[in-house]
Every structure is written in C-alpha cells, then in structure tokens.
C-alpha cells in the first residue's frame, strides 16, 4: 500500500465478512426505501462540481494480514459530472490503492459484473450516479453471498440456481436450419417474454431477497425469471412447459416467494420479477387443476 496517498481510515468492523446485519432484511429494506428517497433529492450535481466526494469502501482479503479483519477504507475522489460509483472505485484503485478489488467489464450495464451494495441497496456500480446518492457513499459487497475479497463475492451458488431450471430452449420439432425456416413467433408473444430476456445475471435480486437468504435451496428470482422466459415462449411446446412448471413448483420453487417486491425494486434492468413469479404460480395452479 505504499502508494496510497489518502491513508485508509479503518473503522466500523462489521460482524462478519458476509455482512449479515443484525436487523431483519425487511426492516433494513424499509429503512433503505426511506434513504433512497433522500438519496434522490439530497445532492445537487452543480454543487459537487470541482469538489471531492468521500467513498467508504469495504475491504477484506483472507490472506493479507491487515485485511483479514473486514474494515472500511475512505477514499476522497475528485467529482466529475456524470461520475458513477464504478468510476469512483476505479479512480480510487488506479490512483490510491491498486489492490482495491471488484469485478467490472462493460461499463454499460450489460455484463452484470458490478452489482454492489451501495448506501444499503443493491445497485449496479456503472449505472449509479454519485450525484444521486447521499454522501459519504458507502460501498459494500452484495449481502448474503460469501465475500471472496473486497467487493468480490462468490457467485457459484447464483450460477448453480440458474442452471437448476434447465436454462436453455427446448423444442425437438424445430424445422431444418438448412431450409432457412425459422419458428414463427407472434409479436405479442415476443413482447410477453421481452422483459424476462433482459436479465444480465448480476445477482442483485437474489442478494435482496430475504427468502433466498434464509433458504439456500430457494431457486430465487433470477432463476425463476429465466424459467419464465422459456415457459412463456410459445415456441416451446405445452409438454415442455409442464415440465418447466414441475421444476418451479417444487418445495424450494415459486411458492416460497412472499411477494415482498425487493427483487423487483433492485433489478437494474427493471424486470417485473415478482409479477413473473406470481404469474408462474397461477400457471402452476391451472396445470394442476387440469389433472384433478
């Protein structure tokens, strides 16, 4: 850390690196909603011009002596119009501390790498404007996932849940590709699945969901949405749809959702996740009625 100009102000050690807070997620979320409202009105961008902003970034590294105990480091970052949370942590890394670690790639909200817990809410770093946040800005790894280092969390469980729902198109009757004939799909049906296909696998929804936090086997909003994307696509046959609904109806499937809308609130692609889950519950009931 020899090049660090702003000495980290080590403070506020959280209870454990997984950042499981003492309050219930529901209480936390209510508080977050309040602070969100403040966030949107609190800082005028022109007031920040030429100023520095203080970001407090969570630090943890299992093998570096002074980072084994989680801590927060302070970085003072010169504000520029349009600066995002990702810009701010990149500036801190490239200027003060090259060991500051986070995933990021596209910078345009499509790779889904940089979901962080910013001021108590899951957000994509690259599409969150610093000027829209209350200051100082507190940046932490996604809650309810194991922290690998700093802002990097282990995504394996998230990927496992995504894979559980057979996340691939299934239709044995496709025409021969060499005849250049596509499957037909109405515009309405494409519109029906459109929002669900926008998922970028950032994991914000899963991290915000207190059911997923308590039940490790719960499929979670992202995986259920992925299943919705196929179940509602008319290009897959009825039989496959029933097969998909059977997967979703299992003990840790759609019925676990308690419609708290936390996933929907944090989704950076505005996917109506809770509605999709509800719709699949209705579909499952319809399917079961058919056999009774």
């Amino acid at each position, binding site marked *: 850390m020899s090049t660090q100009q702003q000495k980290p102000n080590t403070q506020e050690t959280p209870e454990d690196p997984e950042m499981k807070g003492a309050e219930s997620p529901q209480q936390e979320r209510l508080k977050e909603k309040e602070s969100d409202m403040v966030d949107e009105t609190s800082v005028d961008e022109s007031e920040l011009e030429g100023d520095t902003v203080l970001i407090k970034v969570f630090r943890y590294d299992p093998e570096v002596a002074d980072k084994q105990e989680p801590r927060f480091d302070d970085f003072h970052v010169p504000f520029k119009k349009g600066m995002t949370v990702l810009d701010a942590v990149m500036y801190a890394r490239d200027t003060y501390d090259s060991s500051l*670690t986070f995933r990021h*790639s*596209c910078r345009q909200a499509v790779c889904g790498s940089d979901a962080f817990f910013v001021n108590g809410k899951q957000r994509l770093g690259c599409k969150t404007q610093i000027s829209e946040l209350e200051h100082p800005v507190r940046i932490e790894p996604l809650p309810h996932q194991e922290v690998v280092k700093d802002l990097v969390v282990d995504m394996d469980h998230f990927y496992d849940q995504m894979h559980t729902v057979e996340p691939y*198109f299934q239709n044995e009757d496709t025409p021969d*590709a060499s005849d250049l004939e596509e499957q037909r799909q109405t515009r309405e049906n*494409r519109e029906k699945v459109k929002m669900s296909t926008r998922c970028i696998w950032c994991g914000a929804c899963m991290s915000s969901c207190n059911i997923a936090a308590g039940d490790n086997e719960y499929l979670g909003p992202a995986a259920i949405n992925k299943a919705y994307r196929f179940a509602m696509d008319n290009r897959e046959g009825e039989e496959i749809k029933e097969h998909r609904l059977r997967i979703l109806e299992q003990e840790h499937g759609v019925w676990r959702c308690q419609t708290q809308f936390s996933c929907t609130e944090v989704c950076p692609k505005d996917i109506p996740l809770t509605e999709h889950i509800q719709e699949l519950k209705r579909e499952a009931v319809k399917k079961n009625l058919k056999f009774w």
Partner: protein
Amino acid sequence: MYEHDVIVVGAGGAGLRAAVAADEAGADVALVSKLHPVRSHTGAAEGGINAALQEGDDWELHAYDTMKGSDYLGDAPAVETLAKDAPEDTIRLEHWGMPFSREEDGRVSQRPFGGLSYPRTTYAGAETGHHLLHVMYEQVVKRGIPVYDEWYVMDLATTDEDDPNDRECHGVVAYDVQSGKVEGFKANQGVVLATGGPGQAFDHTTNAVSCTGDGHAMAYRAGAPLEDMEFIQFHPTSLPSTGVLISEGVRGEGGILYNNKGERFMFEYGYANNDGELASRDVVARAELTEVNEGRGVNDEYVHLDMRHLGEERIMDRLENILHLAEDFEGVDGLVEPMPVKPGQHYAMGGIETDENGQTCIDGLYAAGECACVSVHGGNRLGGNALPELIVFGKRAGYHAAGKDLGEPQIKTGYGDDIENETDADLPVEPGASGLDQSGGVAADGGVTADTDGLLERTVEQTREHIDYLIEKDDGVQHAEIRSKLQNAMTDYVNVFRTEEGIKKALKIIRECREEYQDVYVDDPSRTFNTDLQQTIETRNLIDVAETIALGALVRNEFRGAHWRQENQIRDDENWLKHTLISWDDGKPSIFYRPVILEGEDKTYEPKVRSY
C-alpha cells in the same frame, strides 16, 4: 494439469460457438475464460446480424456489400464463406431460442444498416449481442461443456522451430483468478483463441475494460502473424463522456445527424450524397470529425444524433435500449432531445491471421471472432457483420479443431512464396523487446521452448516464475500509469486522422512504455483475486498489440477504409492491394505483405470507387 481435446480460450460469441461446434463434432472440449461467459463483451453488441434470409436478397449481394465495405481488402474466400454460411447459422440461433424481433407474420425482422444494399440486419431490439451471448451460453450449459471461468490464460505452449509454420501448439497456461493457482491445460487436438478485441489500447473506446488483446499478444509472441492491425474502426456514434455505444440501428431506423448549425451535414457538405447517415462507418466518423475540426461541432467536441421524429412507439419497439443508455450514461432523454455523439474506437478489423477454417500458421492453433483476421472486413467492417463472423467462423474453427473435414482452405497463412518483405520502413525507434532486459519474463517474452516433450510443464513453470517475480518485486512502476500513457498516445496519434509525424510520436511513446514496463511491479501481495496482477499482464499485451497497430499505420501510406493518411489521401491500389503482416521474430517485429485475394468462387471483385 487439465486435459481436453480442444481448449477454447475466451467465452464470448465466437468462443461459445466454437465450443458447441467442437462438441457436436464429438470432441471433448472445454472453455477457459477470464470472465464468466455471460460477462463477455459480445453482450454489448446492439445492432444485429447480417444474413441474406429474404427473397430478393442473396448471399452474393451480401458478399458484394462486404467486399465494397472492406475497401477491397477483404479476401474473397473469407467474404463469400461468411455470406454463404450466415443465413443458416442465423436461423440456427433462432432454433436455439434467440428472441429476435418479429414481423406481423411471425418471421424474424430485418432492418437496413450502413453500407448494405438490402435490409438484411437481423436483430433482437437494440440488444442483439446480449441475446446472442445468452443463447450461446445456454447451449453450452445444455451440452454440459465444462467452463473454467475466471481463469486467465497467460501463455500458449508452443514449440519453437525456426519457421512458425513448423510449430505446434499443445495447450495453454492459465491462472485461477480466485485462488492464484497456475495450471496447464493440455489440448490434444487444438487451441481456439476467441479473446475478443484490443480496444483498451485506446483511451476513448466502446470496448469493455476486459478487451485487452490477450489472444492477439499470445499468438503474436508464439509466432503467428498479426494481419492488418492498422485498420481500426471508429464508431460514429459513441457517447462523448464514456464511449458507450449508440447503435447504428438508430440511423438504420431513420435517425439523423446534425451539426451545431442544425445542418444535416452528411448531405449538406457532400460526405455521402446517396446514403447520408447510412454511409459506411469510416465515412461517417470522418465526416463528424471534419465538422468538429471546421468549427461546426457542438461544444467543439461532438455532433447531434436525433431520433425524436421516429416517434415514441417505434423507438420503444425497436430502440428502447438506446433510451436507457443515453439516459444512464449521458443524462439525455432521446425522446425529447437529440443525443450527443462522437467517434469512438470500436472494432479491430485486423487480428491473428487465419484461413477460412480458423487455423493459423501454427499447427493446432486457431483463432475466431474479433481477435482473428480471416480476412472478412478488410479495411472497414460493415455494421452487422461482426456477429455473423462470430457464429460462422467460431463454428468453423470449432469443427476444424475437432477434426471435421471442411475442405482445403484457399487462404494461406504464415511465411510463404507469396510474401513480400518490407525493406525500407522508416522507424523512429527500435520496436519490440530488442535491447531490453527480459529477466522476469517481462514485456514480450517468447513463450516458446526447445522441444515438445514436457513443453506444457515448462511453460507452466515459466508462468509461475513470472507471476512470483511480479508480486515479489517491491517497488517500481504500476501498470495503471503505463496503460493510461499508452491509451492516450494511441487516441492522440493513431486515431481517425493519421499523420506520419503523429504515428512516429506514438511509436516513441510505446517504446517508452515498454521500457517503463521493465520496472513494473504488482503492489497487491495477495494470491486471491489479484486484479492488480491481471491488469499488469494485460498491460504487457496491450503494449505489444498497440505497437503492431502503430507499425501497420506507419508503413501503409495510403487511404483505405478506416485508415486515413494525410501524406497520401488516395486509395493506392497499385501498391496496396495487400495485407500488412507483422510477426514477432526473435524479440523484434518483422513486417511483410501478402496479396489480397479478390477472386471469388465464380467472379472477381474489381476494385471500384467506393461511394455511398
């Protein structure tokens, strides 16, 4: 050590498609990628996939448009392969569930794009790449193809015969980003590089921060030539503050470009009297910068792209994603005001020299996608031609690596009888690693050893030593400083308008970067998720790649496609109907040329004046 028949490096569109093809052909294939597949930059592609699907269109028109767009530097066998394979491969995506936009009758929609004589750009909203990437990953999951994600490939295990054409590639060495563990991956049949573009060599780019030309640099140091590296596409519509891309689809749907006087300059100043905004990308990018340079830019920096007249309904239906991008990254509401846009580095037409089966001159080494140069795009890539390239040549490379017979290629690779050497390049500094101490495996090591036996183990050992050296070194220069100096030099001097003087300045700065890199160190001592280490190695790759871009730009003294030279502002067909090839020869780049192939299957593409 891990062992598979085929190792695919990189898991974007081309890599995933190659893996699926290799699997279909019966090989045991694995993907090794520094990102989880769905994080790959294919996901940022917006516009669409060119394919001649409709009645009234045919592959020959697509080939003709592509050849014209390439400014006659595409190789006809590559161009024709692309145009012929694209329809079936596009429909196959649909069969795999790709959510293409649809017509009233339920068929897939196609729209006009720059430089196309027929509206053949197949699209899924303005997020076609996102859907393509996810559909391809779904197919990989379906087939159970193993993915080593967040494994960063650092080197190829290649033999070191004098002539690269005699060399063989037997695998790769990678480190696990999460744990820092270094391992060899043995490839019994072939290695496919699908590592994407080198956009991070530039400061203002639409490319992701992970687009660092890793595959280019590894193949180059192993002896495979890089081809036509000077041809860099600057996309006419990137957002000024971040470089985020605004799809050509906006202009395809009828979006209009205005200067600060509210003039529709593409027509008013005669840049493209027929096609206007839908001229080829290089034409529009130069027009915009000329407007700015002549004082007609907005805030002396950019121009306006207006789509308001298209109406909310059409915009929401076909370009919704653009509204989000303009709002989130530039604070502009595209429904009520025009969007500020300027040219940004977007795509590298050049890359690792391959034939139409994806094979390089090194036996067992393949490349596909943006890191490769088949060459389809020649001097300028048409919008909508990158995604079909991924699926067509990704597929072919995967098949061929897995042993499927695709017929004899017509494109030659490596050194041969048809090569012309560059003899009088006037270089301002000595390029390459010559004269630099190479201890610690720093900038541009060879990556080659004496014999095939135990080759992989030795490459693993070298890589471990290299990493230990970088982490254990206590002070020196940090990669971020070198990288930003390199990026600024490239954007300042090897941009849309290029001069001999400027390019020479860039080469001098690149040399300085190389020298500074001798003293580079990694501050983060941890083996866990050490992005400091990864970026340090990426920076080395960027230096090598940037140098080939600048060298190519210096020797090619003509104006063709995206490459404009002040000293010779004409397309010089007499001297320059040839590809620039640069290969790493004992620590030094050597430059040579191979004639372009304009003879197609049953016609010859005669170079014509390229007007839009």
